[in-house]
């Protein structure tokens, strides 16, 4: 318990947002991929997020049956502050767009090509959201760091 947990919590948020950013970049890069490994067009991917359940304090307490490690928060309460975790990357099941392009080798007999279900505008908006959330995590890290440094100055001069 303490500042390291606070920093770890923010770090988990930053990791999650960066993973979202990676997935969004992948979606944008494949916005026109009409044939992927399974022969289908590329499917948009999304990151699933859930609250984390463990942090250092709760892990330590699990090993310490004598409960001599008594933090400010109880073990159950500490485990409520486990940051965030990505539970998986799932495919967006919305239908593919159809574009009339008879010259395309992936076109069907009617001349239509199935395009990925990636909407570039949605991806850009998600990307801005991920950027802002990442920045918020950075602010939280700096704030915790500032507090820790002030605590070190107790008793100085």
């Amino acid at each position, binding site marked *: 318990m303490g*500042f390291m947990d606070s920093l770890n919590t*923010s770090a988990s948020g930053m990791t999650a947002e960066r993973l979202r950013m990676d997935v969004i970049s992948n979606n944008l890069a494949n916005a026109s991929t009409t044939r992927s490994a399974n022969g289908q067009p590329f499917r948009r991917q999304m990151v699933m997020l859930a609250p984390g359940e463990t942090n250092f304090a709760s892990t330590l307490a699990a090993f310490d049956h004598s409960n001599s490690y008594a933090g*400010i928060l109880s073990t159950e309460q500490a485990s409520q502050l486990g940051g*965030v975790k990505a539970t998986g990357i799932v495919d967006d099941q919305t239908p593919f767009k159809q574009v009339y392009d008879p010259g395309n080798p992936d076109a069907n007999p009617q001349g239509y090509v199935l395009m990925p279900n990636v909407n570039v505008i949605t991806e850009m908006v998600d990307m801005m959201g991920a950027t802002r959330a990442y920045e918020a995590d950075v602010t939280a890290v700096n704030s915790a760091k500032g*507090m820790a440094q002030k*605590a070190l100055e107790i008793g100085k001069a």
Partner: protein
Amino acid sequence: MLETPTLNLLERALDYASVRQEALSNNIANINTPGYQRKEASFASVLAYAQNENGARQAGINNSTRDFFGASEGGRSSIDLFQTDEGSVRVDQNNVDMDAEMGRLAQNQVYYETCTQLVGSQFSNLKSVIEGR
């Protein structure tokens, strides 16, 4: 001598601010988690301590009796955490408001720094008494 009521109270306030910092970091980390409800540290134990202190002082109870009220009980206070059920304005039922959270973060930092300044000044007062100048 070092177990003064003021220092004990400030210690509790610092504990509260550090738990609150953790709760706020957790809220910010979960800003995009569907269904997440924001957590907040409870000020109740700091307040209860201050009230006990005031009550003890008014009743003219001495230091050793004051310890009975939990002033130096293990040197550690426990801070409670609670989950808020404020309404959400988002489709995913997450009720974290980024701006409000950043405001609380800044407020908590200033609060913590104020407490560290006060702890520091307690010690410098003590030091000037020891040095006699």
